């Protein structure tokens, strides 16, 4: 992680100075990860690519604004593509329930690789593991798939108030665990 951060920080600094080759290298190293994020959220390839494109245009223009307080370079970049995807979800009113029903989700499902012996558990994994299974599922649906509270209701078949408080309490618990 540190090595990756050093590499990406170097590339981003050079990008901030207008180095196009560094920006191309940054794209090469990170676009697969960012695309997985936007595809998972938007479900449709053409929208996911649009979000990706706009995110990198923004990254180029805002490279000078990155600062350590914003977290790792990759975290900062992921935020940019996520917020763009969230804007698009609202704008295009992508109906997530439909996707789940007609099986599109399976087509563009980004594989989850949290099983297997080669996966290093992070603190986040440990803390997520401490949540109630349904709490964890609600947070996953909201985070990965960009579902609203209402859409999570449609997916888990529980009252809206329950979903809202689960997510809220789940996040509180997560924070307590992460900042321990």
């Amino acid at each position, binding site marked *: 992680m540190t090595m990756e951060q050093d590499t990406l920080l170097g590339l981003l600094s050079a990008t901030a100075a207008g180095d196009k080759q560094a*920006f191309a290298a940054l794209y090469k190293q990170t676009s697969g990860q960012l695309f997985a994020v936007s595809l998972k959220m938007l479900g449709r390839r053409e929208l996911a690519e649009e979000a990706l494109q706009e995110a990198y245009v923004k990254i180029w223009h805002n490279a000078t604004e990155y600062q350590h307080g*914003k977290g790792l370079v990759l975290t900062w970049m992921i935020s940019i593509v996520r917020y763009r995807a*969230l804007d698009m979800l609202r704008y295009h009113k992508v109906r997530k329930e439909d996707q789940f029903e007609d099986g599109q989700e399976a087509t563009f499902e980004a594989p989850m690789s949290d099983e297997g012996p080669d996966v290093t558990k992070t603190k986040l994994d440990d803390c997520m593991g401490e949540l109630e299974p349904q709490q964890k599922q609600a947070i996953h649906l909201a985070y990965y798939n960009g579902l609203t509270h209402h859409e999570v209701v449609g997916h888990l078949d529980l009252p809206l108030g329950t979903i809202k408080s689960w997510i809220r309490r789940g996040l509180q618990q997560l924070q307590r665990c992460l900042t321990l």
Partner: protein
Amino acid sequence: MNYRDPELRDALAAEYVLGTLRGQARRRFQTLMMQFPSLRESTWLWEQHLHGMNERLAPIEPDQAVWQHISQRLGFTLANADTRVATDKTNTVHEQSSESLKQPQSNVVSLSSFKTRLWQGAASFATAAAIILAVVLVKQQSIDIPVAQQVAVVQGAESQALWLIEVTDNSIEVRSTSNFTPLANKDYELWMIAKGIENPISLGLLPKSGQLSLPKDSQFDAVDIVALAVSLEPLNGSPNGLPTEVLYTAELAVL
């Protein structure tokens, strides 16, 4: 509401980052972040908390066209570094060309086959405008190959293409065509005529045949170029730094 209340601040920031804060609430939060630095910091912290979840997503390679669109939107080629100022200066034009590239591309021909046909001296010559349009359409960008930002076609008295000039990030690529019959005891020099600068600035000698890469004058991107000109000179170029006899001029088109 008291946005200085840490618990409320955290709850809002967490749902903002999670993505469950939507619509008006989301917009309002974005405005509040500008007003309250503590809210912004809370948000950054939550981004760090949650975005680790993405490490569980296996990377998926996006289509190559995404990178092409990005570099077109930003108006650059990637072989060489350039200044941000020069990029921004041409942004408007590139926005337009990227719009045109969103059109169906069935009429796209490959640059190499286009060039081959051009250099083979096929009977009819497109006008400079048509050639430039074609170059725009075939502007297939890749990370490794320098691609022209600007192009010009130097035409003779009968509108025949004599040289094709492509300006890349740090060079000017010139090719002479078979239409061009050079004088053995003369050289041909390329100049740029810039707004507000009285004398033309020499860009170098043109090839009498084949292809030549000229270094890009440091002023090239900084000035407003009205036209390019080709002059007839004694061997080795202008003796006094000014064009001896201007033969042709050509307009430079931004891609």
